């Protein structure tokens, strides 16, 4: 098994925004989904600041979640929130 250890996201999502018919441009960009809040991040190719990677879940996160992580919040992935919510629902908890 090949384990990739660099920090670049692979197999990204894709966004196309084609406004050529109205005189605009055809924007095509990679996207990734923040593993903490599930916001979709459209990667700005001109960005020079680093893309934040959570060491807890080893996944890229959005700037807002990075600010929370920097402030001391623990890593809680959206998948964990989903699991918790579904378990509560299955138990009939409110």
């Amino acid at each position: 098994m090949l384990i990739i250890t660099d920090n670049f996201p692979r197999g990204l999502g894709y966004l196309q925004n084609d406004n050529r018919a109205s005189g605009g441009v055809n924007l095509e960009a990679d996207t990734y989904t923040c593993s903490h809040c599930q916001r979709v991040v459209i990667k700005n190719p001109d960005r020079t600041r680093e893309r934040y990677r959570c060491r807890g879940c080893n996944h890229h996160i959005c700037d807002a979640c990075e600010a929370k992580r920097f402030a001391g919040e623990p890593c809680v992935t959206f998948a964990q929130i989903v699991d918790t919510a579904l378990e509560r629902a299955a138990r009939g908890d409110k």
Partner: protein
Amino acid sequence: MARYSLSYQSKTMTAVADTTNYTDNGYAFFLQGGSATMQLKVNELYIGGEDTASTPTTMVFARDSTVAATGISGDFNALMDGTSTAPGTVAVYGCVSTTKPQRSSTLHLLQLSLNTYGGISRWQARYSEEITIITATQPLGEASLSSVTGTGKVSGHCIYELV
């Protein structure tokens, strides 16, 4: 698991602010879990503009802080795999309801602004990074595609999986 396409046709958007009632047929769709234990995964959104003059429209896919209830109708929902058998409980969808959905003021997920004078906007999720809708109540049980500003005319679809 069953994959569905939820589509909407030639809808003229009504611009609505966050935490404000949507207008029936004035937004593309809402997609809501069909039960307390249902999980949906959205992996593609497409918007095609159909206006005959320039109409910038700020479309946003966001979670709803008030979910639709009663009198629900509108839009189209179809299984993508012709050989699939629909699950016993399916997702709830539409663009008309008695209790109107309200967009969350914080949980905006995807900004798909476009000029609906022939513009298109399409997003595909990275594998395993689909947007998840769980349960049937706010804050995670419903998401919707609607206009924040602009009144463009659009058609499009949302491909999702019922897990």
